[in-house]
């Protein structure tokens, strides 16, 4: 892999991404959905007479959970679609003949997708936080006049939850690229990523303890939970949240080697694949 080839691939990849409308979906959709959800909750609280206490941080983390889950699913699907559609359209053919190797194409896609996903999560975080601040007061959790958990502790928990939720991101994108190179068409790649993503999400509890050795157990998900989900309960004033240090350790250790494994497996497959 040459530096020139990778640089060319990165420029080509960003050129296509910024010329397409999909970039707006990737960057704006999760934030939009999170704002809509928070707006609906606020509306529902008002119509119920305003008796429900406004624990702002709880709604904030709830919004973040939804938008992060959506971001993960979007990027899993887009990374699967990205290479497969280039193959369908024959764009990869031209690139490998002209100036970019197969490995450079995959590496560039991986880097660009990772950066875009991080930007998307940053936008989501800022927008959701701002919206929650506008809709509710972001203060400590108070029950019967006593402060149960203060703002610095809440922020610390949210920060830890976000860090732990971010760690599986590279593995998730690598999984999407893996689906992309083993699929024959873009439609097959998307179906595979949506199907496998959701099936993994639903079935991971059946793996019992082994589920903690699969990176997707730690990413925000539709059917199960990550630490971010526990944070949501903590900052909403629930006292039954159990923090398992072992699971936190696995959350930090498991996703990175799995991301590397999936990425190198993808590079190995692409080397031999017919284009």
């Amino acid at each position, binding site marked *: 892999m040459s530096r020139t080839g990778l640089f060319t691939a990165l420029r*080509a990849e960003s050129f296509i991404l910024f010329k397409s409308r999909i970039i707006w979906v990737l960057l704006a959709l999760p934030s939009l959905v999170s704002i809509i959800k928070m707006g609906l909750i606020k509306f529902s609280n008002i119509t119920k007479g305003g008796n429900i206490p406004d624990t702002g941080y709880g709604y904030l983390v709830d919004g973040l959970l939804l938008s992060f889950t959506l971001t993960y699913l979007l990027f899993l699907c887009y990374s699967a679609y990205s290479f497969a559609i280039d193959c369908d359209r024959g*764009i990869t053919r*031209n690139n490998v003949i002209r100036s970019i*190797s197969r490995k450079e194409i995959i590496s560039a896609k991986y880097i660009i997708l990772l950066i875009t996903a991080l930007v998307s999560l940053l936008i989501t975080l800022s927008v959701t936080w701002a919206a929650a601040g506008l809709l509710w007061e972001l203060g400590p959790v108070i029950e019967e006049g006593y402060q149960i958990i203060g703002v610095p502790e809440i922020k610390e928990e949210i920060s830890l939850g976000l860090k732990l939720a971010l760690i599986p991101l590279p593995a998730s994108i690598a999984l999407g690229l893996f689906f992309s190179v083993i699929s024959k068409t873009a439609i097959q790649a998307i179906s595979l990523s949506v199907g496998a993503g959701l099936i993994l999400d639903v079935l991971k509890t059946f793996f019992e303890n082994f589920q903690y050795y699969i990176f997707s157990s730690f990413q925000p998900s539709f059917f199960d939970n990550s630490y971010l989900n526990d944070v949501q309960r903590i900052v909403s004033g629930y006292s039954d949240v159990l923090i398992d240090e072992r699971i936190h350790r696995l959350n930090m250790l498991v996703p990175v080697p799995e991301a590397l494994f999936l990425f190198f497996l993808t590079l190995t497959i692409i080397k031999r694949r017919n284009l």
Partner: protein
Amino acid sequence: MDHNSRSVLTVTDLHKKFKKNHVLNGLNLEVARNEIHGLVGLNGAGKTTTIECISGLKSFSSGSVRVMDIHPSNLHSAGGRFAVVFDTPCIHPNLTVHEAMEYALLTCGSKEPVSINELEEKLGIALYRKYKIKNLSLGNRRRTSIAQALIGRPEFIILDEPFSSLDAGGVDDLIELIRELNKNSGTTFLLASHQLPYLEKICTNISILHKGLISLSVSINELFGMENTKAVINTDKKERTLEVLSGIPGISLNNNNHSEGITVELSGITTAQLNRELISHDINVYELIRKRPSLDSVFRKITGGTAHV
């Protein structure tokens, strides 16, 4: 890398099979620098598969392929000296023509690319520069695809079915462009097509791909020398003409009904000599048309099939 070697493409004993179906059975092909080489074959003969193996897009069972002394899997290292235009235009449909050209400029790998505006003018796509690719006709998509291939000033270009979906004007422009690039820049071309009359017009060399092998690989002049010249004669005395012709050495009468004239094959006799002979027998010759052997006739003889013209 030997930039001055005579051959830009050497394919030796290339085998390719899809499951149990052998598509290429020991194909040998050599394209020399500055040639315009035509690769012809029936539908399904393996022209596109050959191109895909040459371009490193498909693996092959055995054999050797060198493109400008580079293995197909490393063609990206050629720095844009090699380009392929596939039968289906490979362009991002949501880009405009100008953006597609900018993308090609980004990825061409050349240090001295051609200016985008120059190419757009040359290929007749300047008018459509703001149009999205998905809104263009297939012909204009093909022109854009060819313009993309030319942006890096490649030394060797493979065009798969270059004339399909082009109108008559487009074909003439493309033929002119290929000739000009070949003459002025020394660009070598391999044109895979079954549009034989166009290939006949432009190619310096022809290879016929049949049953997974190159059955014939010759220069166009050699190809035309392979068959006897034919002539069609119309006179005032048909019966007398047939009688005279049967007595002239070097002339064989074709078995036809002579409804559009008498067709003969000439061997060792020119049309001028034939004309003189007929006049000397007091036969008035209204028409004497010399028919050059065509690529089509050689192709049919080898493949036993018809090319789609």
